[in-house]
C-alpha cells in the first residue's frame, strides 16, 4: 500500500516541475494564474498524501480549508484582469 503513495508522490513531483516551468516561462498573466491554480490543487493532493503517510487525520482539515479558500484568490485576480473589481 505504501508503494502506491510513493508512486503518487513521484507523479506529483513531475507535475510540479511542469507547473514551475509554465509559471516562470508563461508569457501572459493568464498562464501564471492558471499555474497558481494548478499548484493549489497539487498542494491539496500533497497535503492529503502527507496525511496518509504520517497517519495524522487532523491534516485533512488543512486540505479542506485550502480547497475552499484557494480559489478565492484566483477569482479575485480574474475579476481584476476583467476590469470589474
Amino acid at each position, binding site marked *: 500500500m505504501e508503494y502506491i503513495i510513493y508512486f503518487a508522490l513521484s507523479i506529483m513531483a513531475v507535475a510540479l516541475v511542469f507547473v514551475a516551468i509554465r509559471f516562470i516561462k508563461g508569457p501572459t498573466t493568464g498562464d501564471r494564474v492558471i499555474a497558481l491554480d494548478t499548484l493549489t490543487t497539487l498542494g491539496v493532493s500533497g497535503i492529503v498524501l*502527507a496525511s496518509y503517510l504520517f497517519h495524522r487525520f487532523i491534516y485533512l482539515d488543512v486540505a479542506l480549508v485550502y480547497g475552499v479558500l484557494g480559489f478565492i484568490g484566483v477569482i479575485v485576480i480574474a475579476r481584476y484582469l476583467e476590469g470589474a473589481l
Partner: protein
Amino acid sequence: MIFLITVLLILLLMVGAAIYAIVQKDLLFAVIASGVISLILSILFLILQAPDVALTEAAIGVALTTIIFIITIRNTVRYEDERNKKKKQKNVKKLAK
C-alpha cells in the same frame, strides 16, 4: 527517498518564486508569486507537524493577502516604473514651459 526529492523540489520552487517576486517589475505577477510562496510555506509548516499554523497560514496567505494586494494595485499603478515616468513627464513639461 521520493518524499525528500519532492520536498527539495518544493523548496527550490519557493526560493525561485521569492526571487521572482522581488525582481519582477509587474506588481500583479509579484502578487501571484507571493501566493505561491504562501502555499509552499503552508505545506512546509504541515511537514514540520504544526497543522494549526498551517491552517492560519492557508487562510491568511491565500485569501486575505491576495485580496488586499489586488485592491491596492487597483487603486494605484500596476507597473513599478509607471509613477516615476509620470513624474518625469511632468518635470519635462515644466522645463518646456
